[in-house]
């Protein structure tokens, strides 16, 4: 993670070239406004952020500070009003909606709150599904191997309602990694977990991010798990600063 530990509302990228950064996430001067007229809110305020391949970064901040907006823009789910976002050197912000969907499919993995697994699918099918709409030539990881990696091989045939919160998150992490993403975006992964399970999940995320050399950004309220992160940022009123 490269950023100025400045006191201003801006976080900036270090100037020197690092190939690992090119493989990860780069956000430059990203601003996003939400609402209309007098109700306009700066969800993201000139945000600069770089997360290198294999790096595990955490973003903390109060509710409504812009953490989810940052994830949405970083993952191509939303388009900022200004600024640029690249993932593994591929520009996201100028891409069409269809191209952003393809980039997301090929480059980004999402881990959602509570796993957000599809209720009709077994744990194994959750990992098989992305290959059904994969881009031509995409090489996915072996779903069963990944389930084994996250300790869920024994429950591959279980559906989400048959799994505990921690197990759902493990499956969600495996699903996010099955496409071999360059960027992993993690949204409050411990929101519904107790402290022990939270530590377990975040340790797993850190381990997987490094093992698979995936740039990982985790949004969290849980300060107990920050010790496992390579860098920590704070979001306040749309502005990002290093802690």
């Amino acid at each position, binding site marked *: 993670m490269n950023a100025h530990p400045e006191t201003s509302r801006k976080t900036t990228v270090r100037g020197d070239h690092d190939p690992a950064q090119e493989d990860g996430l780069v956000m430059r001067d990203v601003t996003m406004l939400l609402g209309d007229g007098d109700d306009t809110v700066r969800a993201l305020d000139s945000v600069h952020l770089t997360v290198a391949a294999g790096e595990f970064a955490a973003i903390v901040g109060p509710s409504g500070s812009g953490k*989810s907006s940052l*994830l*949405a823009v970083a*993952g191509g*789910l*939303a388009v900022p009003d200004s600024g640029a976002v690249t993932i593994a050197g591929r520009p996201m912000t100028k891409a069409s909606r*269809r191209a952003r*969907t*393809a980039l*997301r*499919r*090929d480059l*980004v993995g*999402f881990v*959602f*709150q*509570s796993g*957000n697994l*599809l*209720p*009709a*699918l077994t744990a194994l*099918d959750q990992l*098989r*599904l*992305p290959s*059904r*709409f994969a881009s031509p030539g995409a090489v996915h990881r072996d779903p069963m191997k990944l389930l084994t990696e996250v300790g869920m091989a024994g429950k591959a045939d279980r*559906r989400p309602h048959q799994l505990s919160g921690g197990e759902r998150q493990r499956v969600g992490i495996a*699903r996010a990694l099955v*496409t071999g993403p360059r960027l992993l975006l993690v*949204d*409050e992964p411990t*929101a519904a977990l107790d402290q022990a399970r939270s530590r377990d999940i975040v340790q797993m995320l850190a381990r997987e991010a490094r093992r698979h050399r995936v740039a990982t950004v985790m949004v969290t309220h849980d300060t107990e798990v920050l010790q496992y992160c390579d860098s920590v940022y704070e979001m306040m009123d749309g502005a990002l600063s290093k802690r």
Partner: protein
Amino acid sequence: MFLAIRELHFARARFTLMGAVIALIAVLMVLLSGLSQGLVRDGVSGLQQLPVTSLAFGHGVASDSAFSRSVITLDTVDSWSRQSGVTQAAPFGSTLINASSSSGVEIDLALFGVEPGSFLSPKVATGSPLAAPDGIVVSSTAADAGLRLGDTVTVDRLGTRLTVVGVLADQHTFGHVDVAYLPLATWQAIHAGAGPGEPVPDRARQEITAVAVRGDGVDLAAGDDAAGTESMTLSESYGASPGYTAETSTLTLIQVFLYLICALVAGAFFTVWTIQRKHELAVLRALGAPTGYLLRDGLAQALVLLSAAAAVGVGAGVGLGAAVGEGVPFALDVQAIAVATALLVGLGLTGAAVAITRIAAVDPATALGGNR
């Protein structure tokens, strides 16, 4: 289909309920189709089996009552015979009567007067063809009703006695009444109201209902101009059968409404289903699932549901139809049921497709945060 099939299995209670509604609609559709076909058969099977391409009626006669009101003269037959493309033309008479048989059967008959030996003279399954002046050849359904070869049938009020000399192989009915073919001269006497031994006016000996025409590429308008008639093709003439248009249009209207109901029910179900899955769809889109993939998957799901439900419903409908008693005009026609089923599934799929297009509007960003 990966997701579609798994969702169908996972939410089987909901899909079964929806499938049951579609299946019930399919049952109703089969019963209506059978009733419709049965009414058509009862109404015009006698006409359908006439070996003609068109019928020339009197000019200016209302098209829905041509068989009962049309009166033309025999010389029009010669006029039609001379028309280009006409291979055969013969006089044809039609009258509805009440009668009773010597074996005590009271029966209504549609008397079709034809010249014995002409191309209109029917082929019999049992007995002998038309020849004797008082001989009649009756529909198989009249035989089912109790008329037997050799029976004497007495025309009510006139007292004219006719003898059953032959029975046709199939159902020949007209306006829900059994057809009896008889020699044209006898028909003319009955049509003129002349009882046994009473003289038949010369004018009546020249009167017929229509000219039956068979030919290829016949210019009907030119023939009508020359003969002073008004032609209908054979299928157009069905509308002149008593009650035919009213019955078929009523049933067609009910069937159209049934198709619309199917489309609306399918649309409503898949609208609710799509709204319920909104968060899952947002997750799928966030994972990079293309809109096209999700639409195809949703449509495949709808197609499986509608096809399976229609198959069950059609099966049940055919079973119920087979159990319908003979008193109800009911006929199962494979082609009619196949077309109706295709329409049911097609329109249901259209309704579902309109609902499923909501997928395109799902915002993948709602997969983030606590938006559940």
